[in-house]
C-alpha cells in the first residue's frame, strides 16, 4: 500500500529534474521564423572560396535552395553536424550551404583543421564580432541555442530547426528535400 506514494514521489522528482533538460532540447526559440525573409549578413570566410575576406553568402546564393547553419561554438557536436551538412551538400548538388560559428574569429584554426581532416567542401565561416555581431540581431539568434539551422528557398525561411543533434539531423535532410522537390 505504501509503495504507490513512493513510486509517485520518485516519478515526480524525476520529472522535475528532467524538465529543464527537456526544455533545453526542444523549446529554445532561435532564428528567423518560417516565412521570414533571409536578409544579408556579413561573415568572415574561413574555408570557402572567399577565404580570409568578409562575405555575404546569402546575397551570393540569391534565391537558391539554401541551408544556413549557425553554431554557438566549436566542438565535437558541431564537427559531427558539419560533416553531416557536407554529406548532404554532396548528395544534393542544387543545395547551397554555409556553416557559421558564432563565437568569433577564435574558431578559425579549429574550422581550418576540421575542413582539412574531414574534407569539408561547404564554406565554413565565423562571425566577425562573435556574440556581439549584428547578425545575432538580424537573424534573431538566441545565445542559449547550441545551434540554429535555417532552410530557405527564394530567400524565405521554410524550416527553422534549433538544437539539432547528429541523431536528429534527418530533420534537416527532410526539410532540404522538401524545398528541392526530389532533385
Amino acid at each position, binding site marked *: 500500500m505504501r509503495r504507490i506514494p513512493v513510486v509517485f514521489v520518485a516519478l515526480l522528482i524525476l520529472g522535475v529534474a528532467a524538465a529543464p533538460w527537456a526544455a533545453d532540447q526542444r523549446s529554445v526559440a532561435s532564428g528567423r521564423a518560417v516565412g521570414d525573409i533571409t536578409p544579408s549578413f556579413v561573415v568572415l570566410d574561413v574555408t570557402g572560396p572567399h577565404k580570409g575576406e568578409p562575405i555575404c553568402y546569402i546575397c551570393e546564393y*540569391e534565391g537558391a535552395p539554401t541551408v544556413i547553419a549557425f553554431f554557438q561554438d566549436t566542438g565535437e557536436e558541431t564537427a559531427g553536424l558539419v560533416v553531416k551538412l557536407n554529406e548532404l551538400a554532396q548528395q544534393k548538388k542544387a543545395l547551397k550551404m554555409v556553416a557559421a560559428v558564432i563565437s568569433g574569429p577564435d574558431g578559425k584554426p579549429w574550422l581550418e583543421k576540421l575542413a582539412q581532416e574531414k574534407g569539408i567542401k561547404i564554406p565554413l565561416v565565423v562571425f566577425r564580432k562573435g556574440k556581439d555581431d549584428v547578425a545575432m540581431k538580424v537573424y534573431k539568434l538566441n545565445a542559449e541555442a547550441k545551434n540554429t539551422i535555417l532552410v530557405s528557398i527564394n530567400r524565405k525561411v521554410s524550416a527553422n530547426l534549433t538544437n539539432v543533434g547528429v541523431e536528429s539531423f534527418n530533420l534537416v535532410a527532410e526539410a532540404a528535400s522538401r524545398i528541392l522537390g526530389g532533385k
Partner: protein
Amino acid sequence: MIRRKSIASCFIFICMAALASVVSISQDKGLDPKGQSDYPRITCEELKKLIDAKATQDIVIVDNQPEESFDEGHIPGAVSFPWTDQIKPPVKLPRNKTLIMYCPCMEEEDSIDMANKLKQFGYSNFKLLKGGWFRWEELKYPIEKK
C-alpha cells in the same frame, strides 16, 4: 500550289518558334537579378569625391543592408532601404534624383534585385556602387553610425 502552301506554313512556324524563344529568353533574364546587371556603376572613389565636394544634391545614397546593420555603420548621408522580397508602397525615395544603391555583396546582387523591384514603381535612374559596402570598408572611408 500545295507545295507553296506547305513552304509558307513552314516559314510561319519557324518565325513563330523563333519569336517564342526570344520572348522566353527575355522573360528568364527578367527573373534573374544577375541577368539585369547592366545598371551603370559608380566607384567608391568617385562617390567619395562627390561627398567630399558636397556635390550630392542630384543623388541619394541608398543602403540595402538590414536596418540593424545600417545602424551599426553606413556611408555618410545614406538612407536605409533594406533588401526585401516585396517592396511595400509608399516608396519614399525621390524620383528626380539618381539612386546610388549599395549592399554588402560581392557583385551588388541585393542592390540589383532592389533596383529591378523599384523599376515597377516608376524609378529608372540608378547607379550601383562597385564593390559595395565591402570596398567602402576596405578603403577605410568614413562611416556614419546611427
